[in-house]
């Protein structure tokens, strides 16, 4: 992936101060709030589907942390999802370990699986590593089939205990939704923080030129293992919590382990935009919901006489092929770039040349920006009443 990478540096104060955020970050926060409010507006069935979508998005983000950033493409990420889900379910079903502890154990075991796959990354490069990751879940699936009496073979295990239990069905659904939402936000923030840190910069550098990283005196192997373990733990956590959510996930190969799961996560991440974390989060949500929607359609395609519901994976793979080819950066990057361009175009005098790169003095903000800015101002007054005449964020940047 030779997509350019944004290398904006921002301090944590900037991250914590909502008034200093760029427009896309504000929109992202609005989106998060909207996802948080969704269960209030939709029925319980939809809330269940959205819960599944949130777990899938977490899984897609975990793929991105290792594959999108370090370029060590994992073709078998379902391995970590399955190790987390299966070990947690087995501990709960076989030994009666309470779900919370089982989930923790599942996460740890998935991290161990991350070491097992990440250590060969020391020795193997690019395609060879991808081969190992492609084969690892196939081996696990074979083991599950050979030891069917323990792992339930291709049918899988029965559902383990729910992590959250409530008297009322509706309450349970809402609670599970917010549990998934909490995990989603936690993982989003965690992975954003890691990938925007100095370690994240090294990840990207490994993707672009591993030899250069080594030449700079850093050990690429250390960073690769870190990326694998982090990604595996997050994937395992998602898998473990997923199987403990009744009527959403269950410990079955078809949901956790088969080849299509590994490929679906790649499709989702690529659609959203590899190497952005936010992209796979959006891609994962959209992919899951859109597939669900297409799967429920009864409309028949005229010429071939096949219902759309049978074409969903075909459609997605074709769209992914087209996107990989024409829009390799993914939808989120594309939207940000075009959004910026559109906003600049909307400004009066945008096409006017500006002498010596200076800034235009007139108020050139779009209505959306003005609204957001006025909110900023109100918020700033509330947060810092004593510094009424604090400089605007733009000027602030120049001072630093």
């Amino acid at each position, binding site marked *: *992936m*030779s997509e350019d990478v944004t290398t904006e540096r921002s301090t944590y104060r900037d991250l914590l101060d909502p008034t200093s955020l760029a427009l896309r970050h504000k929109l992202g926060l609005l989106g998060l709030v909207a996802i948080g409010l969704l269960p209030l507006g939709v029925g319980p069935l939809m809330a269940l589907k959205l819960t599944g979508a949130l777990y899938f998005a977490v899984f897609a983000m975990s793929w991105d942390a290792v594959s999108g950033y370090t*370029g060590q*493409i994992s*073709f078998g990420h379902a391995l970590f999802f399955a190790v987390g889900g299966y070990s947690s379910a087995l501990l709960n079903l076989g030994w009666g370990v309470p779900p919370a502890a089982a989930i923790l154990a599942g996460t740890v075991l998935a991290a161990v699986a991350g070491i097992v796959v990440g250590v*060969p990354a020391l*020795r*193997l490069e*690019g*395609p*060879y590593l*991808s*081969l*190992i990751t*492609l*084969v*690892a879940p*196939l*081996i696990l699936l*074979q*083991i599950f*089939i*050979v030891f069917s009496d323990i792992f339930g073979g291709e049918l899988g295990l029965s559902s383990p205990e729910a992590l959250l239990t409530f008297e009322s069905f509706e309450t349970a659904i809402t609670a599970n939704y917010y549990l998934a939402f909490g995990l989603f936000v936690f993982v989003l923030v965690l992975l954003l923080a890691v990938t925007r840190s100095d370690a994240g910069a090294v990840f990207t550098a490994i993707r672009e030129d591993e030899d250069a990283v080594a030449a700079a005196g850093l050990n690429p192997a250390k960073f690769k293992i870190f990326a694998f373990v982090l990604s595996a733990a997050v994937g395992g956590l998602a898998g473990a919590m997923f199987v403990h959510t009744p009527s959403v996930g269950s410990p079955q190969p078809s949901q956790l382990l088969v*080849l*299509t799961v590994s*490929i679906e996560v*790649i*499709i989702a991440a*690529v659609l959203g935009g590899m190497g952005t974390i936010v992209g796979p989060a959006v891609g994962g949500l959209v992919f899951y919901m859109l597939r669900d929607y297409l799967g429920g359609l009864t409309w028949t395609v005229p010429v*071939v006489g*096949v219902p759309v519901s*049978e*074409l969903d*994976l*075909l459609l997605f*793979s*074709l769209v*992914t*092929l087209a996107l*990989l*080819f024409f829009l*390799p950066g993914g939808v989120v990057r594309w939207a940000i770039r075009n959004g910026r361009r559109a906003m600049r175009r909307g400004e009066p005098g945008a096409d006017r040349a500006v002498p010596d790169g200076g800034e235009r003095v007139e108020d050139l903000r779009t209505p959306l920006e003005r609204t957001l800015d006025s909110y900023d101002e109100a918020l700033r007054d509330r947060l810092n009443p004593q510094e009424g005449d604090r400089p605007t964020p733009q000027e602030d940047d120049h001072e630093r």
Partner: protein
Amino acid sequence: MVNVLTTAVNAVMISALYALVAIGFTLIFGVGGVLNLAHGATLTIGAFTAYYATAALGLGIWTGTLAALVVAGLFSAVLYLGMIRWVQDEPIMVMILTLVTSIAVEQVFVVVFGTQPKAIPSLLPGQLSAAGITVQTNQALTFALSWLLIGALIVAVNYTQTGKAILATSMSAKGAALVGIESDRMYLYTWLLAGALAGVAGVFLGSFRTASYTMGRGPLVLSFSIVVLGGIGSIRGSVLGAYLIGFLEVFVVSYVDSSLSGLASLVVLVVVLLVKPEGLFGRELAEA
């Protein structure tokens, strides 16, 4: 004793089929330096072409096999020209694209033919008996045809002008370009050739067992093992690897546990990758 002999003969027959699949795979990797994960899908295309020709068009199976060879070869060539040619400098991109392509192809077959396995008629009916061992004539034909194609390929690569050019490109694309070989055309030839071989292998596999939309996955994974074991890019390594893996598969399934099918070769693959990634006859890729 006879039982062991029969198993061995079966292993030889199935190994011949694996060799056909693996040689195409190794050609593309050895010459172009990219892994074609749609190789299994090409095999499926071959099998379903033969099925369609015999079941729907009412043609003979020999015509069907010819059609499979042509259609699978063309698919492979179009895949190269339309997609891979533009991204071949990025091996990871090629892997993702071919993997997604293979999913798309599988889904097309699900939509067109459904998920039920389809029977493909044998190319030669009947059985051969010698020294107390009975072999399906169809399998014997596969064995003969496999060696015929492998022999033809080795002769072609070593003694014809184009073959030598392909060999030169596999050794060094830059060096080949310096002496006026168009590497793009050589890549196209290897994709065409690999596709045609996979198409024929698909017909045989479909006539031994049945043709289904996921039938290409197993042979694809076996090809990984074979090619990595034999050494990536080496034709003789692939032939030897195919027989080693073929024997391992058949004997494990016959004498250890039939549910271990597929596992043994995967373990071999992982061990070889970790211990000796260049394989038996392989060389490190000369240049990027």
